[in-house]
């Protein structure tokens, strides 16, 4: 029998407000000493009065609107009760039955196919304190830093519409990209401001049977989500095929070992005893407020992608790649602005080729690259290349050098003498050497094998370290080979 996976993702992301969700403490805790952004409200002292941060409500509405959700006309906050040392009050102020947004959708692209993934709900809650686990000699303890407690947290619950780990990865990347465009969240998986949990189950293909759902936690990168889901689907399929039972449980992804491990929590079902938060008054979200908030939405990735196709004449594929990162798309547009004589297609090729390779090799993101190499400088380099001052191959290594050293292309060209050789006389000498050194290729060429010429051009480029003008080299070589033939 064939099985299919049923995957639903839950994303928690911190909102980019200045102050916390229910108090006026600063949310800027990342590099702060422990327990310095704390007041009686976020410390959970008795007798305090929380107040809703309006900006957080609007950011949540913006995200919900961007995800095509219906915005609630009436919404309230609820207490979710449980005991854990990271929860100062003994309850989290969350939203239970009246999420700000519901019934939305997100469109992803997998293997060139569009797929719509349902969004169940988008609601607002608060983050919890951070626990640091310590093991001293013979005794282990946990240390609590309350700075993070009360930072606005938005939860986005997706429908279990995903069937492959790659779909889940695409969904997550798209969601991340939308949040980046909206600028409502730092959305960084690395520092934990964008976290993802997955519900995974498998069932016989085509059936609607409901089987044991496994919750997978602890995935800290897009790649980790992909790998964890791939592992979990395999594990469950194998279990069913060998007649075992899949247990409904929570499992944690262990990156180093590439496996999920059961998190045997004390066996008692969570009993959250949700009830309406008596300290906060409900919200009536008027349609005027929704419209005003909707008007604040920036151009989103899909709209920008389509505009790149019509405005810059890029392929849908390239436009999609460029716009999936806001930073990359901004860089592209600035670069095109800086130099209107260079074709948008050329700029796109540079960003998706050489620049993306630099990002990968150095494990940096676009903003780090942009900090080191301005668009003006790249425009200058591309202009130099298009004028034939340097060859394309040389321009690529110059760009790498620009990133490494922070120097401009003209400085690098001047110091390293990288100007393109277009001088026929000089190239003729080199061509003659190459012809002498590659007798078999020359013979092949004369026997009618046209690719041999490409090989010989490549040899000249190699000798000149990529500085030769390939067009001139081709001409020179052709001429020389013909002359040889006549002798």
């Amino acid at each position, binding site marked *: 029998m064939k099985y299919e996976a049923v995957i639903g993702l839950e994303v928690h992301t911190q909102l980019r407000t200045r102050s916390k969700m229910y108090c006026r403490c600063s949310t800027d805790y990342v590099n702060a000493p422990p327990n310095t952004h704390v007041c*009686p409200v976020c410390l959970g002292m008795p007798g305090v009065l929380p107040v809703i*941060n309006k900006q957080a409500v609007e950011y949540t509405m913006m995200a919900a609107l961007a995800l095509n959700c219906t915005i609630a006309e009436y919404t309230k906050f609820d207490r979710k009760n449980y005991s854990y040392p990271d929860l100062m009050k003994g309850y989290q102020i969350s939203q239970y039955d009246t999420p700000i947004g519901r019934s939305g959708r997100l469109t992803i692209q997998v293997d060139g196919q569009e797929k719509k993934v349902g969004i169940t709900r988008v609601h607002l809650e608060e983050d919890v304190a951070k*626990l640091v686990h310590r093991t001293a000699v013979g005794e282990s303890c946990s*240390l609590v830093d309350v700075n993070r407690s009360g930072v606005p947290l938005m939860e986005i619950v997706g429908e279990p519409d995903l069937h492959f780990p790659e779909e889940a990865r695409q969904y997550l990347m798209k969601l991340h990209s939308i949040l980046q465009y909206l600028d409502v969240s730092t959305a960084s998986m690395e520092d934990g401001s964008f976290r993802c949990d997955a519900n995974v189950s498998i069932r016989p293909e085509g059936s609607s049977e409901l089987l044991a759902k496994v919750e997978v936690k602890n995935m800290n990168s897009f790649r980790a989500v992909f790998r964890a889901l791939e592992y979990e689907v395999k594990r469950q399929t194998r279990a069913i095929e060998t007649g075992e039972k899949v247990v409904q449980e*929570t499992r944690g992804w262990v990156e180093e070992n590439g496996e999920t491990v059961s998190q045997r929590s004390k066996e*008692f079902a969570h009993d959250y005893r949700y009830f309406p938060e008596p300290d906060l008054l409900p919200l009536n979200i008027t349609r005027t407020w929704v419209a005003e908030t909707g008007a604040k939405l920036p151009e989103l990735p899909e709209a920008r992608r389509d505009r790149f196709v019509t405005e810059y004449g890029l392929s849908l594929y390239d436009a999609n790649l460029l716009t999936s990162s806001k930073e990359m798309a901004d860089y592209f547009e600035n670069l095109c602005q800086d130099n209107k004589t260079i074709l948008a297609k050329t700029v796109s090729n540079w960003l998706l080729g050489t620049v993306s390779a630099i990002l990968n090799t150095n494990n940096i993101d676009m903003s780090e690259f942009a900090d080191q190499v301005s668009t003006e400088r790249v425009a200058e380099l591309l202009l130099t290349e298009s004028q034939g001052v340097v060859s394309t191959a040389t321009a690529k290594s110059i760009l790498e050098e620009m990133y490494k050293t922070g120097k401009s292309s003209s400085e690098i060209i001047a110091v390293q003498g990288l100007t393109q050789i277009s001088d026929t006389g000089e190239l003729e000498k080199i061509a003659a050497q190459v012809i002498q050194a590659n007798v078999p290729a020359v013979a092949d060429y004369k026997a009618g094998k046209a690719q041999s010429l490409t090989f010989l051009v490549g040899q000249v480029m190699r000798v000149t370290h990529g500085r030769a003008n390939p067009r001139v080299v081709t001409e020179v070589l052709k001429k020389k080979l013909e002359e040889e033939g006549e002798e």
Partner: protein
Amino acid sequence: MKLSREEVLHIALLARVGLAEAEGEKLGEQLSNILENFEVLQPVDTSDVPPTTQSIIRHNVMRDDEVTPSLSQDEVLANAPQKEENFFRVRAVLEQ
């Protein structure tokens, strides 16, 4: 409404209250009494009253996103039963 022994123990567990056998008996009775007192409200006809989660008529009470100074680290930790390196120190938690 009489609470069962299991219900009393479950509530105690959720509230993280340790109960001796005798205390369980006594608190069970008291909790049951409280619930019975509320049952007085049951006969009232509320079919014309829309359900609400608030008895206050106001709504949309929000504040602008502004930061004000927090407490000092010493004040924050002043009531901590145990502290270490400017953190609250608690018993080790291993559950995720």
